């Protein structure tokens, strides 16, 4: 009797331990999955791997490039068409070295030059999350690249020139916060994919990191993150930077176009701590530079005519929101005076904003953003050039005038 009881107690104790242990691993794995989901958002995986109206992470989204169209891959855990047969090692190898588990080369549209900096633990968490989502049986669509870019072996050359494998190494001379920001910006955030100039081979050299560039195919200019003359954030407050990243609007400016997608899909979900860390890092990498004297390729008579017409156009169409002195009503109606995105050397973004207008992204912090009307149908090329020339040179702004031809060329820029 006594021994029976003790066996029963032992069994019970054993069961309890097993149950507790299971509960514990359950907790642990759901923690990892939640962390993986957070990190997948930081990496904005959905922007490329989910097609419009398609299933989450089933791929098939067309990515037009100067070399042809790529179609993104299925990263759901479907064993046949997705990554269901992959191991965590396989996934890390792909993220870290830009090669498929079988060693095959991945086109650098997948930002593995940035993802190589991601730690093994973070890669494992993302993998655990991807394993937890519903599998979708959807075959990958073959890429449609022009000769000679359809030859994958060319990627070897690209890799030699532009790819350095290696996890992020913290800089011991900087704060933990700065290093966390650097890890996110340079790694998962892959900000350099747009904000670094891309050469004819589709690569970026290290020395040009974050120096800004025109985004191929989309015709939006991704400003330099280092130059304070562009989007350099050296003289921004940390609050203005975090507001911009988390909500899409701030006292200094508002995001539109491709950056609206980044805020919408990715940045709005980051924690306050991580957003702040990114802000600290971004503020830290800016290189102060004195504003250059305004100089224009346009003949002075033409630009002064443009600017006087520009004031008329501005006062009639823009001043009711942006103010007679370009002061705006921030954060929703951004200031145009002393706004870096207006004064940059490239006038692509201000011209496109006048032509196409736009909504900042709807975010948790700004769920019902105010939109800017498109003026393409209301203003002639001359009027667009005039009003952009005016806002780039009025109120102490030090940009240069633009020509009607530049305005005309952007009328046919793709909108999405």
């Amino acid at each position, binding site marked *: 009797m006594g021994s029976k009881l003790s066996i029963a107690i032992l069994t019970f104790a054993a069961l309890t331990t097993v149950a507790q242990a299971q509960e514990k691993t359950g907790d642990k794995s759901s923690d990892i999955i939640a962390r993986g989901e957070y990190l997948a958002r930081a990496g904005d995986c959905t922007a490329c791997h989910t097609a*419009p*109206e398609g299933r989450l992470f089933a791929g098939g989204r067309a990515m037009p490039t100067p070399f042809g169209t790529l179609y993104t891959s299925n990263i759901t855990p479907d064993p046949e068409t997705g990554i269901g047969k992959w191991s965590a090692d396989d996934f890390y190898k792909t993220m870290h070295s830009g090669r498929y588990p079988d060693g095959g080369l991945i086109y650098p549209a997948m930002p593995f030059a940035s993802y190589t900096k991601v730690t093994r633990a973070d890669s494992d968490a993302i993998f655990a999350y991807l394993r937890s989502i519903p599998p979708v049986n959807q075959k990958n669509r073959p890429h449609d690249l022009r000769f000679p870019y359809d030859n994958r072996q060319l990627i070897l050359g690209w890799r030699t020139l532009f790819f350095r494998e290696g996890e992020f190494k913290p800089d011991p001379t900087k704060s933990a916060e700065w290093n966390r920001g650097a890890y996110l910006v340079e790694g998962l955030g892959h900000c350099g994919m747009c904000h670094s100039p891309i050469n004819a081979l589709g690569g970026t050299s290290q020395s040009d990191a974050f120096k800004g560039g025109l985004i191929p195919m989309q015709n939006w200019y991704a400003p330099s993150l280092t130059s304070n003359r562009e989007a350099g954030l050296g003289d921004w407050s940390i609050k203005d930077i975090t507001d911009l990243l988390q909500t899409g609007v701030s006292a200094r400016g508002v995001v539109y176009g491709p950056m*609206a*997608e980044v*805020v*919408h899909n990715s940045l709005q979900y980051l924690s306050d701590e991580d957003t702040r860390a990114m802000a600290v890092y971004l503020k830290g990498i800016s290189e102060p530079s004195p504003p250059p004297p305004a100089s224009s390729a346009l003949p002075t008579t033409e630009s002064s005519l443009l600017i006087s017409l520009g004031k008329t156009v501005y006062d009639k169409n823009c001043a009711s*929101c942006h103010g007679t002195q370009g002061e705006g*009503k921030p954060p*929703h*109606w951004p200031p145009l005076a002393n706004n870096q995105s207006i004064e940059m050397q490239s006038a692509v973004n201000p011209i496109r904003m006048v032509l*196409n*207008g*736009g*909504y*900042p*992204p*709807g975010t948790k912090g700004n*769920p*019902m*953003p*105010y*939109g*800017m*009307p*498109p*003026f*393409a*149908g*209301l203003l002639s090329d001359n009027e667009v050039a005039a009003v952009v020339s005016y806002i780039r040179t009025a109120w102490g702004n030090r940009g240069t005038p633009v020509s009607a031809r530049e305005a005309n060329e952007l009328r046919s820029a*793709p*909108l*999405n």
Partner: protein
Amino acid sequence: MFARTAASAAVIVTLAAFDGAAAQTANQPPDTMAARVEACTPCHGNKGEGTSDVYFPRLAGKPAGYLYNQLLAFRSGRRKYPPMNYLLEFLPDPYLEAMAEYFASEHPPLPQPAPSEVSKDVLAQGELLATSGDAGRNIPACVSCHGPGLTGMQPGIPGLLGLRAPYISAQLGAWRYGTRTAKSPDCMQLVAGHLTEADVTAVAAWLATRPAPANPAPVPKGTYALPFGCGSQPN
């Protein structure tokens, strides 16, 4: 003396605080949907009444459910018009619903119908198709879904009044060629597939001549049964 200074300081601080509050409000855009949808108005008019451009449709007074479905379709790119696709791309569902509600609740007067440029015979053919359909060719009458007054039905069937012939014709064409699609079963695609070019011209011309009825509001849900299944308005 000290007390007086302290008291006046308090008054000044309070006044300054009031000033600050006033300045804050004055320096912000109006907290209204009208201000938020200003991006829509160059093409659709301040209250969604339409503009002089015949290709931009009137939105005002259409059922909110219909407008919301269109906003979703433009956002996902299923309905293709790049300036619309671009504007809506990163806006959340509840905001699109609020936009739809806003334009649905506006009731600016319907425009005077423009004189038609087609012959009386063509108009008569359009009227026949719109009001009776053509059973032999499997074409239901427009009024059988869009209502006897062509004012539409809540929540998903749009009214057809206040639209110009080129817009109606372009939409019927888009359905015929499959560039405009709706939720399955895509009833308009079926109907438009049975129309000839001449039918489209005739129906579009006749619809554009219709004067405003006494009550232009869409009729409530369930007022009449649709003749066949329609994904935009499940029965």
